[in-house]
């Protein structure tokens, strides 16, 4: 309870709320896309470097490999569950349900970052390799979603002008995977000595930059909600709220079975629970252009992201402590 209040009253969450409120009150303020995209790249470099340096300090035990594998499996499987829920409870068609499911199988790196901050301020520790888990969980869900969308349909003819390999490049070489994995590797290779000289840029100001970025995310989420909510029926909104809980439970169960420490357990729950709103929407426009962004973007950015930030993270942290504490 205290933890939850501390979370809710942190500058990060409050700046998100500020952006959300401004957008809902129909303020015209915007943060330029070029600036926000620059900040996003900064955040991914910073988190990759940090994870890499931490990895350079410890060995690559078998446990690490199993957690990495577990992350991939989770990302492959979660869309199946999400798809089933959506098709049972809502009136979404096959394509929209598959596209939405892809978002929930993939991850939100900002949710992950926010969680690492809260975990630290709760006095827990998390491992550097969880950044690698995050990177690995971005893409598999997209493949599952493609299969789900096509099951039982006759094979879709390829879109005019498409090229073999373009989807794979978009999915595996998008900015967030390139920067996360690259920075992780660089942090790992250069270790603490390399990090020392760049930490005044990548470590110290990190939380402040996150505040600025969350202000922008609040603005986006608020606008998404204002424009998109008419497209969402009750069952869809409910999905945006219970699906993270289902995923987190699954993530928690796996973490428990692997016996990893409390902080990492919380992070795996967060990764499972979070939904993508940057990488997967772009991939969906390429792979399933018929799916409606107003559905999946509004759900993932307007419903699930705020839910995780305000309610989910403290909750997962609480349970992670219970399981592994």
């Amino acid at each position, binding site marked *: 309870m205290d933890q939850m209040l501390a979370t809710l009253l942190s500058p990060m969450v409050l700046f998100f709320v500020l952006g959300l409120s401004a957008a809902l009150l129909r303020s015209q303020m915007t943060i330029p896309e070029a600036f926000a995209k620059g900040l996003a790249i900064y955040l991914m470099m910073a988190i990759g470097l940090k994870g890499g340096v931490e990895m350079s300090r410890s060995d690559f035990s078998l446990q690490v490999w199993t957690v990495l594998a577990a992350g991939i499996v989770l990302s492959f499987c979660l869309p199946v569950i999400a798809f089933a829920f959506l098709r049972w409870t809502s009136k979404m068609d096959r394509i929209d349900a598959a596209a939405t499911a892809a978002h929930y199988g993939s991850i939100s790196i900002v949710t992950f970052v926010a969680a690492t901050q809260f975990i630290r301020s709760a006095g827990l520790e998390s491992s550097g390799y969880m950044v690698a888990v995050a990177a690995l969980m971005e893409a598999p869900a997209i493949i599952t979603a493609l299969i789900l969308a096509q099951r039982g349909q006759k094979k879709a003819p390829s879109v005019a*002008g498409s090229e073999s390999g373009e989807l794979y490049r978009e999915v595996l070489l998008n900015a967030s995977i390139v920067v996360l994995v690259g920075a992780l590797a660089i942090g790992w290779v250069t270790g603490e000595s390399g990090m020392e000289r760049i930490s005044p840029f990548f470590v110290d100001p990190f939380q402040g930059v996150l505040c600025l970025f969350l202000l922008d995310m609040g603005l986006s989420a608020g606008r998404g909600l204002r424009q998109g909510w008419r497209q969402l029926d009750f069952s869809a909104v409910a999905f945006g709220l219970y699906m993270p809980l289902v995923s987190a439970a699954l993530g928690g169960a796996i973490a428990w079975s692997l016996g990893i420490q409390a902080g990492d357990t919380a992070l795996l729950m967060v990764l499972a629970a979070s939904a993508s709103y940057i990488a997967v929407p772009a991939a969906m426009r390429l792979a399933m252009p018929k799916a409606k962004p107003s559905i999946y973007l509004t759900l993932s950015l307007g419903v699930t992201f705020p839910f995780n930030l305000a309610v989910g993270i403290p909750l997962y942290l609480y349970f992670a402590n219970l399981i592994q504490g």
Partner: protein
Amino acid sequence: MHEKIRLELIIERMALKRACRILETAGVSGYTVLPALSGYGRGSRWQRDRDLSASQDMVVIISISDESPIRNVLLKLHELLDQHIGILNIARVEVLRPERF
């Protein structure tokens, strides 16, 4: 002055590469892509600075060309626009240097 065709294709950014491949294959001599800020369609509405994923951004492709590659390209673009969001228009314009196209 010499008559040419000006093709203008307003299309979602994620499908830009596909449209460009079609144009290049059909043999247009060139094209230029302009960014868009925002837009409104049948029910949809997007704005560049308000969508972190940029997955709803549109761009405008302008290509000045002879009639024949344009006629070539229309069918393929029609197919593309069956899948992707976009609209296309062509108009007759005059150019200075016909050998340029």
